[in-house]
């Protein structure tokens, strides 16, 4: 287990360092010097170089990477280039909104996808089976912002059932939930079908396995066989798909937030990009990467928890 944790943490750090390096490099690649862009065309060379110095842009790339990481480790994600406030507070205020959306989408995707998939596997070729197949094929490829705009037009503008903009900040919990409905649906729509298809496929595979036949040979009820024996194994590949898909979910959340005007990380990064407020962009993207890496690690843990064979591989010393 220790070995496993160590490995997890090492790969976590490697991904973070890599991501920060790419971020820093991107700032370099953007046409025009960040400092002179910020200060406008009439800034004096002295002012530009002073800003460059204070933003650390005069340092070599690797030093900037190290500095950023060092500061980040101490909770300092940089200084807002426009307002001069620390970025950390701004970013942290945006995080809950994004997390609510992303986790809401995960919960909805699994909460609906799993039972639909089980049902589809129980009756292959049935109505549920065909519907999920249609949703999966038709909607996983439709960009979520298209769905978002459609939902917005229908439910908020025409029907007026849901709020048009914002995250219900400063209002009660129910209002926040109300604001969450459409964005969550937009993000998770394709995923519901996709998860249902994956659950169906892996469940059908598992139902053909010898140990399921054993369970039946001992008179276990169909319910027990399906929900206790088959689903335990069928869920494993679905979890690993989720691990890969979390990046997609977070990415979609960022897009959808912008459309719904939710004050989350997506909206923050988007407006900072427009203002060329690079420290905020950097910090925002960094936090997204951290979220991604952490959720992936959690998925790996769930994976190991579900399958004792994998657990064993980490517990013991890489024997074979």
């Amino acid at each position: 287990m220790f070995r496993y944790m160590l490995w997890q943490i090492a790969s976590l750090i490697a991904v973070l360092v890599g991501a920060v390096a790419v971020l820093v490099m991107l700032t370099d690649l953007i046409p025009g010097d960040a400092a002179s862009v910020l200060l406008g065309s009439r800034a004096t060379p002295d002012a530009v170089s002073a800003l460059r110095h204070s933003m650390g842009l005069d340092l070599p790339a690797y030093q900037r990477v190290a500095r950023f990481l060092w500061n980040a480790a101490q909770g300092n994600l940089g200084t807002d280039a426009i307002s001069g406030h620390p970025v950390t507070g701004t970013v942290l205020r945006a995080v809950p909104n994004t997390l609510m959306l992303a986790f809401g989408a995960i919960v909805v995707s699994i909460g609906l996808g799993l039972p639909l998939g089980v049902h589809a596997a129980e009756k292959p070729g049935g109505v549920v089976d065909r519907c999920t197949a249609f949703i999966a094929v038709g909607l996983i490829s439709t960009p979520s912002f298209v769905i978002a705009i459609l939902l917005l037009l229908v439910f908020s503008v025409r029907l007026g059932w849901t709020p048009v903009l914002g995250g219900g900040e400063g209002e009660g919990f129910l209002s926040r939930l109300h604001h969450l409905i459409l964005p969550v649906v937009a993000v998770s729509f394709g995923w519901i079908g996709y998860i249902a298809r994956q659950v169906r496929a892996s469940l059908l595979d598992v139902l053909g396995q010898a140990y399921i036949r054993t369970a039946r040979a001992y008179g276990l009820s169909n319910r027990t066989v399906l929900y206790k024996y088959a689903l335990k194994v069928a869920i494993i590949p679905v979890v690993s798909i989720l691990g890969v898909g979390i990046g997609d979910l977070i990415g979609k959340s960022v897009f959808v937030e912008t459309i719904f005007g939710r004050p989350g990380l997506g909206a923050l990064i988007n407006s900072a990009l427009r203002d060329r407020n690079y420290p905020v962009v950097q910090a925002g993207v960094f936090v997204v990467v951290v979220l991604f890496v952490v959720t992936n690690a959690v998925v790996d843990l769930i994976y190991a928890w579900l399958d004792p064979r994998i657990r064993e591989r980490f517990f013991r010393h890489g024997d074979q």
Partner: protein
Amino acid sequence: MTDAQVIKARGLVVRHGLVVAVAGASLDLVAGTTTGLVGESGSGKTTLARAIMGLTPIKSGSVVVDGRDLVTMTAPERRRWLPPRVQMIFQDPAASLSPRVRIGQLLAEPLRVHGMLDETSRIRQLLEALGLPFDLTGKYPHQISGGQARRVAIARALVLHPRFLIADEPTAGLDVSVQGDFLNLMSSLQKTLGLGTLFISHNLNVVARTTNRLAVMYLGKIVEEGATRSIFAKPSHPYTAALLSATSEIDPLRRKPRIILKGDVASQSGPPSGCRFHTRCPRAMPRCGRDAPELSTVDAVHRVACHFPIA
């Protein structure tokens, strides 16, 4: 005996990660004789065969084929040196035929690679020896019967006229009603071509019928080795004795009292100290847990690795 007529494996060690699959095994394959190799899962018999074929890296020891040690060769050298000399057929040989290649091409390919001429006459001869019609060459593997496919797989192994053939469980999955046919073919080929065959099998009755010499492996080591007849008549190693007694016999008069071993084969990654069999051995003494026995002579045709062999 010339170099060409023998494969000598000496002190072979093969490791897969932490697992020592073959822990110092020596074996001779001689042209014109069939050597049986028996042992249970984890005994390393397949790994030993693969090492002789250059299919798995050798940690230490040597395999001398036709005068040259495989261990000292580079991979491309081995690919040139081995195929005309040693070939291997696998469990379910028919499955190893590539489905999109005609039988004729399948057989001509190795000849071309190794620059051998008059392909057609060689292939014709070989198919005849195997009792296959020549017009099979125009067909794809799925167009021929399972029995024919098995023969084609053998034909492909023999098309370069190797002196040695390694057969890894070639009768596994065959029904007994057709097994005899296949074994008759193997033994007639062995005689007419003077092949030296290594025959790996878990079916001891088949091994008794088809081999001249026999090596018994347990946990990566050869524990007994000698003339098949001699070993079956009077096994010296307690493991061999148990293995032989475990085969079922239809005829009650022929049944030997069964020796039931306790427990399972120990783990390859942490084999027992001393004699690797001592944890299951009905004859084990304190010494067996300390010293590993070496193969020593029982008689002119028979060697055993046991401190207290069955007299």
